[in-house]
């Protein structure tokens, strides 16, 4: 275990940046999101949750797949190069890391998504344990320990000092590289912090949310439940929940005409959108109820059915914070439990 004073973090970031691209929470126009570090970036480690989850470091909102150009009446296709240099993501939270685990299930299973795989291979995650969890957090429900993030390096911010502990080989290597700025220390303070935060977690209003009745085997029963007809009604069909979510992984592939050629790119898509999975004949889900149901069924039923019971929700609570209509997965889960109680 090492530590570094908060005021020295700028030097740490600069040092990391010498050999790695570095992504971390940066505040732009009052909002904090993960972004590439630069000397004048306004790094913000105090905001608990970035607006968007850091998933776009590994799975960007849009990325070019290949480019077609016409040259002398011939078509030239240039695939986009894969990431081949190491990069560091600093400040990810335990829930977001769990989110990456969900994405791994999707993108690293056969057929492997090479763009994602390359980023995963070269990415080094330095996690930051949560210090003051908020009322919308419910990571505990999904077995996430926000005090003990499972990353390459885990860090804790305690009283103006960042405690640093490498957990993997990648983490060890990074620690070696920045060791000049770190000082060795014992784990006592970290242990105290962990138990203090765990106590807070227990007090969070959603921590005892029950997932009873949600698993891969309840497809027909849940799918046909009348409750969906009520629940979806306030939904505005925007993509906010999807785009702030650390586990949503759906994307669309589109072409952009540059005038001299075509760039084929993929970008996040939302199952809430009316043209999601639009096909020539139209749409296979043509009502907002169906689209709304799809999102929650996917997270709580379809995904666990195909992934050894793993839910594709990590309880980060971003959708709880951001839904314009104050709808969210917690309300959905609760509504079904209440109905069961009656």
């Amino acid at each position: 275990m090492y530590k570094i004073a908060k005021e020295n973090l700028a030097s740490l970031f600069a040092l990391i940046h010498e050999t790695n691209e570095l992504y971390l929470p940066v505040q732009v126009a009052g909002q904090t999101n993960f972004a590439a570090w630069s000397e004048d970036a306004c790094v913000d480690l105090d905001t608990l949750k970035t607006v968007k989850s850091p998933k776009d470091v590994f799975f960007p909102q849009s990325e070019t797949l290949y480019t077609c150009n016409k040259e002398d009446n011939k078509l030239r296709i240039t695939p986009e190069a894969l990431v081949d240099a190491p990069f560091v993501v600093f400040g990810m939270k335990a829930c977001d890391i769990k989110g990456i685990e969900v994405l791994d299930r999707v993108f690293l299973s056969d057929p492997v998504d090479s763009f994602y795989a390359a980023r995963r291979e070269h990415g080094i995650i330095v996690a930051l344990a949560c210090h003051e969890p908020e009322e919308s957090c419910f990571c505990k429900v999904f077995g996430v320990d926000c005090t003990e993030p499972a990353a390459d390096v885990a860090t804790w911010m305690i009283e103006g000092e960042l405690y640093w502990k490498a957990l993997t080989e990648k983490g060890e290597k990074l620690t070696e590289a920045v060791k000049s700025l770190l000082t060795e220390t014992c784990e006592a303070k970290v242990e105290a912090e962990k138990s203090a935060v765990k106590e807070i977690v227990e007090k969070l209003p959603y921590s005892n949310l029950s997932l009873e009745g949600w698993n891969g085997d309840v497809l027909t029963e849940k799918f046909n439940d009348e409750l969906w007809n009520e629940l979806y009604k306030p939904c505005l069909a925007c993509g906010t929940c999807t785009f702030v979510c650390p586990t949503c992984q759906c994307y669309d592939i589109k072409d952009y005409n540059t005038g001299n050629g075509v760039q084929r790119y993929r970008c996040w898509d939302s199952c809430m959108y009316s043209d999601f999975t639009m096909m020539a004949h139209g749409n296979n889900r043509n009502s907002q109820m169906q689209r709304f149901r799809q999102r929650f069924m996917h997270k709580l039923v379809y995904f666990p059915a195909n992934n050894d019971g793993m839910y594709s929700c990590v309880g980060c609570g971003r959708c709880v914070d951001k839904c314009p209509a104050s709808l969210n997965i917690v309300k959905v889960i609760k509504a079904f439990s209440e109905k069961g109680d009656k």
Partner: protein
Amino acid sequence: MQRIGVFVCHCGSNIAATVDVKKVVEVIASEPGVVHAEDYQYMCSEAGQEKIAIAVREKKLTGIVVCSCSPRMHEATFRKAAERAGINPYMVEIANIREHCSWIHKDINEATEKAVILARAAVAKVNLNTPLTPGESRVTKRALVIGGGIAGIQTALDIADAGYKVDIVEKTPSIGGRMSQLDKTFPTLDCSACILTPKMVEAAAHENITIYTYSEVEKVSGFVGDFTVDIRKKARFIDADKCTGCGACQEKCPSKKTPSEFNRGLGTRTAIYTPFAQAIPNVPVIDTEACIKFKTGKCGLCQKICAAGAVDYTQKDEIITEKYGAIVVATGFDTINLDKYDEYAYNQSPDVITSLELERVMNAAGPTHGHLERLSDGKAPKEIVFIQCVGSRCSDDRGKPYCSKICCMYTAKHAMLIRDKYPDVNVTVFYIDVRTPGKNFDEFYRRAVEQYGVNYVKGQVGKVIPQPNGKLLVQGSDLLDNKQILKEADMVVLATAIEPNKDVRKIATMLTASIDTNNFLTEAHAKLRPVESPTAGIFLSGVVQGPKDIPETVSQAGAAAVKVVGLLAKDKLTTNPCTAKADELLCNGCSSCANVCPYGAISYEDTLVNDHGIRETRRIAIVNSALCQGCGACTVACPSGAMDLQGFSNRQILSEVDAICR
């Protein structure tokens, strides 16, 4: 993807001297969709057009781009050529590489590069063209003329003579209009009634003409070739079939104090009245506001006196609904209100009158039986002052910015007639300019000055002050002599500006005909389509389009009639296929498009749509392609992009943008 043939014209050396046409052919040949490209000396020649036909046949072309002169020159030529070759004429686009390229650029590299880009844009557009077919709509062979003055009468007569049914709707109890109020006409000085009355009689007697007097247009729907109009025939309280026009009722009527509209309020009329002796129809109407029977329930003299038993106090307004193929607006004019011209004392002295009032004074059937006398005391005037441009050519908001056009001539007429009949009367005319363009007009004016000794003073009148002795003190300036003039006059005549009839705005709205800030109806083109409204099927006759004198009005009335006849002669109308069209799946029914449509071509219908399995009734915009002229205003007003313009679609224009910017 289309199979496009590109034909690059040399236009002799007009294009080829500045644009490397071979290079254009070479580069454009590799554009997506292009399967054929060639150049030729003169594409518009028969041999050139034949090249198109051959290529269509051999290369199975579905689209054509001609790089040549302006489409305004030869688009029609190449469309016809395409049609002859067997492809839809709207699959042709022109790249204007002459007017917009070779003629304005000197550097051959630059011009060639630009020609290629213009060709690419045309190719990109053709790739998205769709075959268009002009629509057809039927024509009701009947015309409506709104307004029964000389303009309306002449138009109706000309249409009727050509063999088509025509209805005249006149607001007042008789046809005849302003011209019936005039005494003499310039520049020939013949009697207005003598030349108008035969026309009125002819119209009334014509088997193809139906006249609705004391009637107003209430509602108009439909479009060119197929209008439906509701006409309100106001109750006259006289059974026109029984009335013999004997006039006994008018003689007996005890209510005699109503100012006569026909005499411009200078005389009075009875409550039951025909406006003037030669009125057509010669059937009186009862003015219910003046009639004692209607006001008190007592009287009923007219009914008692009427031998024919034609008076019917229970008569009601009647709505007549009729279909028309064309509508002519001939609603004429009135003089402006002079309330804002206090300085001329019009409202203070009865001896200050308008020229139109003077017409009535001079007329034998008028309030003074044709004697020139002061309306205040009936004395013969010795000194008369005419003031020109009262409210015309006005730069402030009291009057009108335009020249009323007829005043210079009628004032010369009045001056001449007065000097002729009363040589002892002095006549002075204050004018800004004397405008006499027209056949025998300047000669006429010069006669007034030289032969009749009318005193023309270039200058304006600042004030007319009624004097205690009953005279009128006129303060004016003589700009030529640069001096102030003070003149004591017995009468002052104001050449009052004319303006379109007050009702025209309401009528224009019903017809969706455009109207200008001065309330004149707008013509489709100021020079080339002066008798047509931009709204198809609506035609303009007379002063409703702009100030004119009688001969001009009559010629315009005839021109409007010819246009109507040209329309009615067709059994079907082909419509411009480049019209707007709403995608019913995208339409919100919000009315934005209808709000900006200058032709009233857009209506809304509750339509059952199937939106990818969702069936619901929605309010959907429907474009009447017979009315739509294809301006595209609606396409931009439409936020969802439901409204698109065929032939100039969003994607077509965007593809041109892309091709130019790449």
